Structure formats: C-alpha cells, structure tokens
C-alpha cells in the first residue's frame, strides 16, 4: 500500500541525504538550490551533524572534502555559477579520493543566466568541468520520489568507490511539490553502503594502496596511529607526491577504472514502450517526463515511439545506447541546452540510426506537444 506524502523537490533531496547518513553540509545559497541548504540547516543539528554556510562556493567544496576526510558523509548543493566555482576542488576530491556528493540544481546559463528558470546545460560540465582526465558518477533523477532514491544512491556510490558523485536536478524538479511513496524510505528498507576501513595495523598502513576493487581504504584523519597525507599532486601509496611515470600512470588509470568497471552495476535507465518502437527518445530529468507523455500521444497517432530515460548520465550507458540504435529507425534527443548529451548518444549510436535534436535554452520547458511535432517530422522525413 502506497504511503503518499507531498514533498518539495529540494527538501526531498535534503531529507534523503540525512537518511543516507549525511552528517555534514557546507554551502553557499544560490537559486534554485537554496532550499536544500535551508532544510539541511534545520535537519543536521537534530541528527548530530553540522551545517555551515561558508563564504563562497569554493570554500564550501573545500569544506566537504575536509569533512569527508574526517570520516563524515558530506554534501554541498549549488547551481550553475556556483557549480563552476566548485570545479577545482571537485577535481581535488577526485584526486585525493574524498567521497562526497555535489548537487547541482540546474538553471539557465551561461554565466548568471536565468536564475529562476530551468536549464539542462551542465550535462557535459558535470563530467568535464574540472581540468584533467576523470570519470565521476553523475545521476539525474526524474521525479521527486527519484530525487530521494538517487540522493541515497549518490551517497552509496561515493562511499563505496571513494569518489565525488554529482547529482543533477533541475529548477522544475527542485521547486516542484510531488507525491512520494514513503513506504520504501523507512529506515529498515533503505540500503546504506559505507566506505571501507583499513584492515591492517597502523605500521603497515598505506592510505593510497588500493584493494582488489581499485579502492584504497583510507582511515579517517585523527584515527590513532593511522597517519595520512593527501595532495592534489600525483602521489604514491603513501599519499606523498611523486613524478615517477609508472606510479602516475597507475594512479590515473586506477582512478578512472574504479568507476568504469562498475558501470554495468551503476547503469540505471527507465525503458518505456521500447519493445516495438521505431523511433526512440533519449531524455533525462524534467524533459524525460514531457517525452513520456509525448510517447503516449504519438502512439495514439499510430507512431511507434518509445523512451529511454537515462538516470545514470555518466558513465553513459554505451552498450544500451548502441543496442537501441540498432533496434530503431531514428533517435530523438530533446534537452534543455544547445545540444550536449546528443553528442554522447551519437557517439554510442555509431551511425546505426540517425540522431535528431530538439534543443532549447531560454528558460522554458519543452512541452509534450512539441516533442510530438518533432516525432511526426522525423517519421515523415524517413518514409
């Protein structure tokens, strides 16, 4: 029996973070993410955690890396301009393997852009925004219920792989109230993963010596006897800098591999009416909801449409997208930017099916009827 409760998107994110075990939040308010900070400020003290409003987004990102190294599950939330400011320390978190969750409630960009309106313009930035090669998990829920699920999943993967995880929302999701079935969020039903701890005595402890899963067991700072060192420089197992090409190569390859090898388990999509689909839509977030309605509208008109809603944006579902391209006559990628994820879909489609675009970056959502017209156009063009 469903236990429905109306929840505000940004509040759902904060409440799920607490459920996942988050006990530290540092942030700097920015529309449309501020309600996450507000709720965390209310909730954290009640759960023995700490909330701090920092002087800016750069410091907020630095603070959650520090809290993470002290052993806390840590989170920050921001939007466009703030996400840009966080990039350097996000790269640092990746390099020093500090588990943390960075929420970006997307608004219209570039720059200060459209603060109060929706955008999906950080699809590429969430992976490539910070310098240097990297691979970090990026999740993008599609409704308020899923905001809770994905927030918990973001913490779990961050802890298991000792990596930052980016959780993308958008202004409509963050500022929307929606019913959530709370049945699945009772504490006994929520699965929580925690980071592994060193199993060796202090004298044998090497903070950056990876296990078989490519993940090192780093003791929280302050654990008696377990001495650590963290640096953004390339480092060896001790955590101290090195320029030894073999060590550097091992490090960068491992950092990417530890995420990549878990792609199959991390992959999460929703497939809707794809079995007999001739045209497939690939979409995410709020746009995917319009796409789902458009699929039904198209079916009523005799167009065999289907939807692949991608939740784990990065690492991308390469094989699933390739199989999809082989299976359909055309793919449409509607997104609230000037064409970002479409590049990844094209790459994975490997020319098996033509990939069409529907782009908008003016702060308005894409309506189902607009996707329907595009589908009709595509079908006409292909007959």
């Amino acid at each position, binding site marked *: 029996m469903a236990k429905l409760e*109306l929840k505000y998107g940004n509040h759902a994110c904060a409440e799920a973070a607490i459920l996942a075990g988050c006990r530290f939040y540092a942030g700097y308010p920015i529309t449309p993410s501020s309600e996450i900070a507000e709720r965390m400020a209310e909730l954290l003290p009640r759960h023995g955690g700490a909330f701090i409003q920092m002087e800016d987004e750069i410091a907020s990102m630095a603070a959650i890396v520090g809290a993470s190294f002290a052993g806390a599950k840590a989170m920050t939330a921001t939007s466009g301009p703030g996400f840009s400011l966080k990039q350097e320390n996000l790269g640092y978190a990746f390099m020093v393997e500090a588990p943390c969750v960075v929420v970006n409630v997307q608004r219209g960009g570039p720059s200060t852009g459209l603060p*109060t309106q929706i955008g999906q313009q950080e699809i590429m930035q969430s992976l490539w925004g910070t310098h240097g090669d990297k691979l970090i998990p990026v999740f993008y829920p599609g*409704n308020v219920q899923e905001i809770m699920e994905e927030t918990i999943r973001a913490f779990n993967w961050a802890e298991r792989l000792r990596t930052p995880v980016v959780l993308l929302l958008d202004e*409509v999701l963050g500022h*929307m*109230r*929606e019913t959530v079935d709370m049945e699945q969020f009772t504490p006994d039903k929520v699965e929580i993963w925690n980071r592994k701890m060193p199993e060796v005595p202090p004298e044998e402890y090497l903070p950056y010596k990876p296990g078989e899963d490519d993940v090192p067991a780093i003791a929280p700072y302050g654990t008696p006897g377990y001495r650590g060192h963290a640096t953004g420089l390339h480092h060896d197992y001790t955590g101290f800098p090195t320029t030894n090409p073999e060590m550097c190569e091992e490090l960068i390859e491992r950092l990417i591999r530890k995420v990549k090898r878990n792609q199959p388990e991390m992959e999460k999509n929703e497939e809707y009416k794809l079995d007999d689909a001739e045209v497939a839509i690939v979409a995410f977030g709020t746009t995917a909801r319009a796409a789902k309605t458009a699929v039904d509208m198209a079916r009523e008109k005799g167009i065999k449409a289907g939807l692949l809603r991608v939740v784990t944006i990065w690492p991308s579902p390469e094989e699933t997208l390739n199989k999809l391209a082989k299976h359909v006559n055309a793919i449409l990628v509607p997104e609230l930017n000037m064409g970002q994820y479409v590049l990844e879909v094209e790459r994975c489609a490997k020319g098996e099916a033509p990939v069409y675009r529907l782009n908008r970056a003016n702060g308005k959502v894409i309506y189902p*009827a607009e996707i329907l017209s595009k589908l009709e156009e595509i079908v006409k063009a292909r007959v």
Partner: protein
Amino acid sequence: MRYEVRVIGSAGQGSILAAVVLATAAAEEGLWATQTASYGAAMRSGTSLGDVVISDQQIDFPQVTELDAVIIQSQEAYDEMVKGKPVRLDPECGENTADVLVNVKPGALVIVDEDLVQCDLDCNMYRVVSAPIARTAAEGLGRRQVMNIVALGVFQVATSLQFDGKPLISEESFLKAIEKSVPKRFIDLNKTAFQEGVKIGKAALQKA
C-alpha cells in the same frame, strides 16, 4: 485519470498556498499529485498562479496543459489570463504557442468569486460556479486572507459535477491537508474557512 487545476489571483491572495493544500489533500486521498508555480512569489503586486496535477497513477508531465478546473480569485487575474481568450491561461506564452501550452478544456469547472470577478465565460461551454467567497471570508470569518481556503471548499463540492455526483477529494482529506500546510495557530481558522466554503459551494450548486 489526469485532472489539472490552476488557481489564479492577485498577489497576496494565497493562490500558491491553495494549490499546495489541494495537492496535499490529493495525497491524503491516496492520489498522486504534482504542484508547480512560476518561481518567485508575488506578495505585493501583480498576479500569481499555482498549478496542480492529480492522477490515480504516477504523473509523467508535471505541469498543466489542459485544465479541468480554474479557480479565479480576482478581476485582475481574470482580465490578464482569461478574459476574451478563454482558451489561453498562460500570461507568459505568445499567441503562436498558446495552443500547445495551457488550454481550458470544454466542460471544465470555473470557480469565481461572485463579488470580485465579472466573468463573461460561456456557461454552455464551462461549468461556472459563482459564490461569495471573499465576502464569506471577510464577513463570516473576519479574515479576508482565508478566501483561498474558502475557495477550495467551493471547489471540493463543485468537483461532484464532474465525477458523477461524488467529489474528487473528500472533505476529510482537505481538513487533514490544512493541518499539514498552515501554521498551527491558523489551523482552526482555515478549517472553518474550508467548511464555510463547502456550505456556500452547496448553495451555489443548488442555485445553478
């Protein structure tokens, strides 16, 4: 089943709060709901709107496109969003995109304040229910601020016109929703406001 409602009014009339209470009541009733609003509350001037989508299953597109009901709280909001153009209710959209954006379905419920709103909608096309909403709040309850909740009472009763004599959401669910949505010291006032709304709603239906 997908049922879409828009509450429109002037700044400070609580259109968004009415939408929140309505969505919460739907959840109490065991229905799925989404509630959206254009960001930024109009507290002192201008018009504002609150949207709700209600369904017996999880909702795909969360915003309104085909309204089943409109609650109109002020002349200003009516003139800006409805008058002379009963098919278009989104002040932000241009004429060329109006058709794909927000329409009011024929047969939709239109709740208007009988003192505040001069409404010239075609009664053959829409189910127009007119009631002394603001007057009830101001004179009956001494608080004009609760007119949004009085309007919800009228709406609750009037949905029986669309669902074979049975309202979409029960009175009990609305009362629970009020408990959850308004500050403690105003709960009783708002509950009374809702019940008064139900009363004048019933009277209005009998008249019509």
